[in-house]
């Protein structure tokens, strides 16, 4: 089976996100009000061949924690659906 996986990589809460902060200031400078907590992250998309959704999830989780994110700074969030 083929699955479409998306891994979102976010800075962990408590880790400064100067990029998000700057974008937030730019949003405010444009005159939009009521917008806060802007955070920057990455999305890494991939197609995965696997027997089942569970095994695809296990594979992508391992890739996400060993390579795609650094647990000292980042959290990884995984979404998987059939391709």
């Amino acid at each position, binding site marked *: 089976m083929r699955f479409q996986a998306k891994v979102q990589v976010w*800075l962990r809460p408590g880790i*400064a996100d*100067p990029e998000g902060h700057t974008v937030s200031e730019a949003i405010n400078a444009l005159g939009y009000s009521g917008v806060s907590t802007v955070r920057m992250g990455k999305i890494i998309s991939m197609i995965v061949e696997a027997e089942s959704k569970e095994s695809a999830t296990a594979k992508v989780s391992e890739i996400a924690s060993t*390579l*795609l994110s650094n647990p*000292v*700074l980042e959290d990884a969030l995984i979404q998987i659906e059939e391709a």
Partner: protein
Amino acid sequence: MTGKSVGILVFPGSNCEYDVASVLEKMGVKTQLIWHGQTDLGGVSGLVLPGGFAHGDYLRPGAIARFSPVMSSVIEFAESGRPILGICNGFQVLTEAKLLPGALQKNARLKFLCQEAELEVVSTRSSATSLAETGQRLKLPINHFEGNYTCDVDTLNELESNNRVVLRYVENPNGSMNSIAGICSKEGNVVGMMPHPERASDDLLGSVDGLQIFKSYISNLL
């Protein structure tokens, strides 16, 4: 001076390997460049991971370099107690490889820094500062975007209480926790530092303070 030789790792995108080699050779130490695809370290007595942009810094600095074939040999080399010096990108690779704790995140205020930095030698138990004096000031260039040293509180306490903070910025340029510019492993043989000692090793370059680091490093070659 010594028959021992130093291996300088070269990843695709490393760019300070010849600078490091030139300084060490002038100091009488033989050097050899070791391509990241090799696993044989050629019997060297010490290793340097030079600055640059290993694998383009894609994903995160050091994230891909950590899985280069050479790194399994580097980990064994570290366990043998021989000295390893990671400079700038080399420091980032050592943290990704978990040979040193913590991580280097983007500089505070997202500023790329290319300037001279004044540093204080905090600990002399590392292989790169063993001949320096505690409190000694060194002027070394920094040249990085991701040099903001970050770790959890327990790690920070452990580093401080075990004298594992090797160098501190006198004025914190990048947001690093406790102004950390360099740290060492528990045993002191593995050292990572953001400043570039090889770029301050000749009068022509305006400072020879970097020689202090290399003198210490050479004295610890095994």
